[in-house]
Structure formats: C-alpha cells, structure tokens
C-alpha cells in the first residue's frame, strides 16, 4: 500500500498487484474485483505458460492472477486498498499541482478572479476584432 503524489501536467494512475502477496485470489473471493465500482481489476487464470495444460485449482497458489490492467478507468476512490486482506495492492498517482491562474478546465471558474493571465491572446483578439469590424 503506497500512494505517491508528484507534479505533472496530466494525472496518471497506476494500479499494481504484488504477485508474491496475492497468491490465492479465489480464496478471499477476489474482493478487489467485486467491490471496485469501475471494474479496474481483471482475474486471469493460467499465469504461467508452463501450466497451460493443467486444470486450474482455486486452493493452490499462483493458479490465478489478479491484475489492475484497466487502470485508466480508475478514479482513485481507494476502496480496494481497504478491502484487500493481504495488502497486495499499491496505487501510484501522479497529479499536476494546483496553482492560481490555471486553465479553467482544471479549476473551473475559480482562478479567473485573479485577472487576465494571457496577455498575448488578448492582443491577438484585439487585432482580430478590428478586422472583423472593417468587414
């Protein structure tokens, strides 16, 4: 269980399942897979190629594999961290820092009280408006 927060432009989330800790996912009735509202987790059988011709057994270790392969769907509600009995899941989030005067889609309408942030764009607009009036 680890949460890292860094600053980048776009938020990125990675969901990792520790294979050594999570060896019997069917015994704990794969709680992460069931309780996730966005269905981030997938359950695979036959994790190793050498077991391709074996029948998978629920009670023997390493026959089933849980992965967070649909991580772009994840919204970071962190419920899987609480549900996992083995503490096998770790989530890494890299999010941009919050600043004043940012683009409105990041922080809608709040930062706009500060003033006009983009002077070049305003000058362009002025020139465009003049052209528009002449036509």
């Amino acid at each position, binding site marked *: 269980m680890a949460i890292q*927060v860094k600053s980048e432009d*776009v*938020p990125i*989330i990675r969901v990792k399942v520790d294979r050594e800790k999570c060896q019997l996912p069917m015994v704990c009735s794969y709680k992460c897979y*069931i*309780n996730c*509202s*966005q*269905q981030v987790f997938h359950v695979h059988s036959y994790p190793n190629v050498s077991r391709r011709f074996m029948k998978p057994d629920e009670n023997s270790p390493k026959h089933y594999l849980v992965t967070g392969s649909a991580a772009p*769907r*994840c*919204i*970071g*509600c962190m419920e899987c961290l609480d549900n996992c009995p083995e503490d096998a899941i770790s989530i890494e*989030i890299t*999010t*941009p820092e919050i600043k004043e005067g940012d*683009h*409105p*889609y*990041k922080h*809608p*309408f*709040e930062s*706009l*009280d500060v*003033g*006009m942030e983009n*002077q070049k*764009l*305003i000058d362009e*607009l*002025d020139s*465009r*408006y*003049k052209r*528009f009036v002449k036509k």
Partner: protein
Amino acid sequence: MCDTCFTHTKTGRMWFKDAKRYARFMYHRNRVEQTKKNTKRIRGGTAAIEAAAGPLIAQAMEAYNIKDERYPDLMRAANRLHAKVQGAQTLTLQDSLDLIDISSPICLIHCECRKAKFGFVERDRSKMTCLGMGIGMYRWEKTPARYVAGAEWVDHDEAREWVIKWNKKGLVQNLMNFGVYNGGPWIGGLCNCSRPDCSSIEMRLRYGEKQLIKGERVAIHSEDKCTGCFKCIQKCQFGAITADIRKHKAYIDAQMCFGCGLCEGVCDFEAIDLKNRRDFPILRFDW
C-alpha cells in the same frame, strides 16, 4: 454547515452558491470596462471574443466533418477562446433548486438552441424549457431578436415547480454563465436540455468543444443494492451507464458521467450516490 460547503472554493461554498455570482456589480463589470490598472480590457467586451471564436469553431467543425488532421488543434484553440465568454455546467436537481432560491428575478423564456438550429420557437408557455435569471432580464425588451416569444415573469415557487417537472421528464439542468472573461462568471440562467436540441451537450459530446463543463458531482453506484432493472440507462443523456451482462447490474463509467443526477432520481433502491468530484484525485482534473 456541512463539510462540502467548506471544501470547495475560497469563499467556502460551491462557486455557484456564492452570492457574488448573481450580484449587480458583476453584471455591470462584464458589460462596462474593467477598472484595474494592470489588466487590459478587450474592446467591445465579450462580444469581441465571441466574434473571434465563432469562425474558429466553424472551422473546427468543418475539419471534423472532413476528418481533417488539424481538427484537434483547431478545437483546442477554439476552446481556449470560447471558455472565457460563455459557459455551462450541469447541476443536480437539488443544486438547481438552491440556485433558484438565491437569484431573482426569474423569467420563462424560449429555448435559443431550438430557434437557432431548427427555427422552432415555442410560443406556448407550457413548452418552454428555459429560465432567464438575474438583473439582465430587466432589459429583455432591448434585445427583441433573442426574446422573440417574450419573457414571462415567474415566482420562486412556480420556478421550482417547473424545474421539478422538467427533471421528471428527463431534461438535464445546466446553468448558464456569462462573461467569464472579465471578473469571473456571472450566472444568468438555467437551461433544461436534452439531445439533440441542446447545442452545448451536442457540441461537447460530438465535437469536443468544452462549452459545457461537467458538474460538481459524480454518480457512483453500489453493486450490492443494484437489482438490474436498468431504469437508469434510459435516463442518461451522456451514455455513461451501460448494462453489465456478466453481473446483470448497471455499470456507471465515472469518467463519462456529467453529474446531472437523473439516474439517482429514478433509482428505486437507492443504489446510486452522488459524490463530490473533487474528492477523487483523478476526477478533480477532469472537467
């Protein structure tokens, strides 16, 4: 006071529950010049930006129709301009009722999108689906081209009844704000929209123009209570809810959800909760 009221804005409320957003001086400030020394105002006010953004958006739409490669760049530029003029944000029913409490006066007006797209003006009062709000409505007679069917003054109670009625029909509530550029947004109306009439929903979903911004809430369902009646799928305008056949339950994609709360009103089993978008580390950057 609840926690949500303190976690949202600088003022401690949700931004649209701030009384400043309805105030006379904000409306005045958007119309007349800005008095700060360091900032430079645009000649012609926000109309200049609209005039500049209009052709850009038209170009971007053409590029989308031809499947040109320049479409994303064009639309990004158009977004940057047009986001400063006028915007909309989806609201839940409860939030829109709160919004009616704060603002006055309120008018019933016809839908501009329907007029602009299809040439259809509803002159009958029972078919109108828009509410004009704020002191801008006092001067509606000065722009007769916009208010072709006139404006009918409405009580607060009556306005609430209308909104509840529209919500039961399945219309999404969007607040309209004006003059985002000068001195922050000023709230001037409450639209009740549905596809394909509403241009802001259509432009957002089909062309990716972000005039309409996602709401402050997100619908998140608990699968224990869901019985798989799939009533909520019919209500969703944004295509966020699908039927999960494997579990025979509904599946809500939170990254496509706009937070209108229509699905919550339909659900008989209280399986859907509306949670704050800003509590989730990924969704708080997704507007």
